[in-house]
């Protein structure tokens, strides 16, 4: 069966790794290992350390498929339900992924292995938990080398985006355009001289820049020099490098900021306590009734309704464009081990496909299409209609493409204070957005199952896709 799948597998897939390529086959991800690397990969996958990580859920589980002629090795991984890319993570998720990579590298030393490829692209999230997915990133360590080969890559791709975010306010989402992260020279012009020489920027920006300028550019010897020493001394030096790198990561503390939306749930004055309670109760009842396995919460904010869906047994993906609100959602979900994957994602401006031929990282909507049993859009429609100026029909069509069956929507009338605020004197333009207009647009794609009217004039609708 496995062989048939492999034979019929397309030639596409990942192409950067010299050891093999990865492609999707049904509900599994298959990894083809080229013959010359098969033995080394097998011995790594079968090592007690790799097996333990898979059992602990820190590394993606890997099944070795029956062998074929020609020495080609095929590994099978379960597909992570909703892949999120580093540019869709919050600072908390970013640090969690970095910490996982460092911890695994530290642990691998004891078994004679080392992490050779340290980039956020090797990590995904299952719910709020980071999982290492590139099983080919570990290799046997040269016992006489005191160097961690992936140190510079770890700094460029994990630490420097955090430096840029903390000290310059550059969003982590900007890394979408920086697959290999930032060099010291990219950030130095924007950082004050004194700050560059203070810890933790001194070993990340000031010293690398100085050495690069003064020594590396002028010295051919420096470019070729690789130290070798006694195995116990080399092991001590690598451990020290990893310890210091972990300390650098811990020192890059992202300050908690209050954003426009991060305190929305607690401060929303257009909701009375009983409106909140009625809304939560309606959503809870609907979810208990329809029992969706997978729910997408659009405009999830800090995840109040995502948690209701998770408690109803669903695996939830929670999108919001406000980084602080998503970070708060991730922290709560992580501490409560809820099955919620919070992501920095904008429904109106979804993450595009990136990479070579626009084919390496799929767009947000490609990943979401037909993946969810229910889509929650609570307190979002009026933002999409008025602030993003997306036509109602287009929004509902998008919901119908993402949801396999259900949607729970909140309709905000023209008289609502939030509606008026977003209109900003353009009432005449949006005069047509009445409840009748909404129900008519809805009826083209969905059937109304139930509705609940709140005392503040808003209404919540459970709708089912029409066949």
């Amino acid at each position, binding site marked *: 069966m496995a062989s048939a799948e492999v034979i019929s597998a397309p030639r596409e897939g990942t192409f950067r790794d010299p050891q093999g390529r990865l492609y999707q086959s049904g509900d599994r991800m298959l990894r083809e290992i080229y013959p010359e690397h098969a033995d080394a990969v097998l011995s790594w996958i079968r090592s007690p350390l790799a097996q333990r990580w898979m059992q602990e859920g820190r590394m993606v589980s890997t099944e070795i498929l029956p062998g074929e002629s020609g020495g080609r090795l095929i590994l099978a991984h379960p597909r992570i339900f909703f892949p999120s890319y580093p540019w869709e993570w919050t600072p908390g998720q970013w640090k969690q992924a970095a910490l996982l990579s460092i911890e695994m590298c530290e642990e691998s030393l004891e078994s004679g292995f080392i992490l050779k490829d340290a980039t956020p692209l090797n990590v995904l999230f299952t719910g709020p938990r980071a999982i290492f997915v590139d099983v080919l990133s570990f290799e046997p360590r040269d016992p006489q080398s005191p160097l961690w080969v992936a140190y*510079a890559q770890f700094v460029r791709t994990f630490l420097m985006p955090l430096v840029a975010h903390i000290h310059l306010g550059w969003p982590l989402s900007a890394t979408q355009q920086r697959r290999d992260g930032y060099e010291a020279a990219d950030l130095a012009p924007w950082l004050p001289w004194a700050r560059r020489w203070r810890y933790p920027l001194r070993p990340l920006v000031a010293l690398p820049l100085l*050495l690069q300028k003064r020594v590396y550019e002028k010295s051919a010897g420096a470019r070729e020099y690789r130290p070798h020493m006694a195995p116990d001394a*080399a092991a001590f030096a690598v451990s020290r490098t990893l310890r210091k790198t972990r300390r650098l990561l811990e020192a890059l503390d992202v300050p908690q900021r209050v954003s426009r939306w991060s305190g929305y749930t607690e401060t929303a004055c257009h909701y009375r306590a009983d409106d909140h309670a009625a809304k939560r109760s309606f959503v809870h009842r609907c979810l208990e009734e329809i029992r969706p396995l997978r729910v997408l919460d659009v405009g999830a904010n800090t995840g109040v309704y995502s948690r209701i869906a998770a408690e109803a047994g669903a695996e939830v993906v929670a999108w919001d464009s406000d980084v602080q609100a998503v970070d708060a959602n991730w922290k709560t979900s992580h501490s409560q081990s809820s099955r919620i994957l919070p992501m920095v994602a904008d429904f109106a401006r979804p993450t595009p496909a990136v990479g070579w031929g626009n084919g390496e990282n799929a767009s947000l909507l490609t990943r979401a299409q037909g993946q969810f049993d229910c889509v929650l859009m609570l307190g979002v429609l009026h933002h999409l209609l008025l602030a993003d100026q997306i036509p109602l029909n287009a929004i509902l069509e998008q919901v119908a493409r993402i949801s396999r069956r259900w949607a729970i929507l909140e309709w905000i009338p023209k008289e609502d204070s939030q509606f008026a605020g977003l209109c900003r004197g353009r009432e005449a333009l949006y005069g047509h957005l009445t409840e009748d207009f909404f129900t008519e647009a809805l009826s083209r794609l969905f059937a109304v199952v139930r509705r609940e009217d709140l005392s503040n004039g808003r209404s919540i609708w459970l709708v089912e896709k029409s066949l």
Partner: protein
Amino acid sequence: MKCVLARSLYGLCLLLWGLIALNSIAKTAYAYVDPGSGLLLIQIIGSTFAGMTFILRKHIRLFFARFGHNHGEAGKEVGQR
């Protein structure tokens, strides 16, 4: 205070070691600079110095293990490392 002094001394030694090491291998060449080259140099300097410190400490311990009072225990500790 003692810790700060020790750290400063360590940092100074590290810097001196770096300068000496790089000076000894320097040949003039102008070329494209690889990404992360400055970080690689920092790691080379730090790791080499750490390795040398480890070896030096090991030899000092061995010396004291041979001639010191706690011969057996220190010798065992060095052996374990």
